[in-house]
């Protein structure tokens, strides 16, 4: 998947967020020397291609009381992993869900699902819900709670030559 120079400029101009003005796409267009129509059309194309997942507001789940989270990890039979991963991802308390390679013998788990809740007990209760959903296809599971943030920087589009 490739992006052209105009799309790159559009991503750079909007990755910090949309301006809070009545016509935000016109404002982005003005900054980039494009027409409003072109900005809207190009954003729609990026969305259709999956480069933009959605245009939306992200609530700060910590501010809303969802302060507990855990990285749940599951050893799921390979043959059913895709189908079961899709079910786990659709749960409204799972914010990320991926299949990843195992690292045997250290690490038997191939399905990762980040669980959020108001309390640790709620996260554990949701973990049991996932265990129930996976049933016998799950051979082992664990959950890793974060104890400290050691570094956090936003993912940014690298500028050319960076």
């Amino acid at each position: 998947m490739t992006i052209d120079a105009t799309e790159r400029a559009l991503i750079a101009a909007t990755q910090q967020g949309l301006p809070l003005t009545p016509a935000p796409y016109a404002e982005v267009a003005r900054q980039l020397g494009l027409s409003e129509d072109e900005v809207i059309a190009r954003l729609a194309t990026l969305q259709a291609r999956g480069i933009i997942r959605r245009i939306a507001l992200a609530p700060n789940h910590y501010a809303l009381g969802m302060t507990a989270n855990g990285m749940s990890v599951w050893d799921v039979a390979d043959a059913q992993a895709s189908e079961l991963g899709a079910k786990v991802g659709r749960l409204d308390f799972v914010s990320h869900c991926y299949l990843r390679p195992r690292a045997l013998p250290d690490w038997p788990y191939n399905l990762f699902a980040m669980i959020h809740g108001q309390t640790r007990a709620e996260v554990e209760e949701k973990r049991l819900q996932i265990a129930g959903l996976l049933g016998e296809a799950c051979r082992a599971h664990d959950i890793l709670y974060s104890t400290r943030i050691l570094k956090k920087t936003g993912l940014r589009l690298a500028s050319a030559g960076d």
Partner: protein
Amino acid sequence: MRRTPLGAHELDATDRAILNALQVSFPLSPRPFAGAGAALGLSEGELITRIGSLKEKGAITRFGPFFDAAAMGGAFCLCAMAVPADRFEEVTALVNAHREVAHNYERAHRLNMWFVLACEKPEGIEAVARSIEQETGLRVLLFPKLQEFFIGFRVDA
């Protein structure tokens, strides 16, 4: 980013309705606040003011397009290390010194350090991981994403 809960009085029912509705989608049209506001019973100006104030309170982390970072051309990989307790601070400094380390968490497990590498090209991941191994003398396990699932995550405001 704010990591503590807001007090119950800091958000009213309108704020909560905005958070619930706009986390799903925001219009891609010339006057999107007018359209989204109408569905919430708010004027264009009221919705803009409310979103601005929610941002100031730390109730919103982002407002705008959400990009698939990998689709934009970057390479990303989750990595983990088992770091001896008495070397934890030293190893943290060595790992975090790499600008490709986007975030890094301590987790309660034998594999107690989990970080994401963000590189421009896929071959960068392996190179950074190997240099962290040389600097620390510890193994770096790589957990690249094989498949990502559609996410139904919703925060009930």
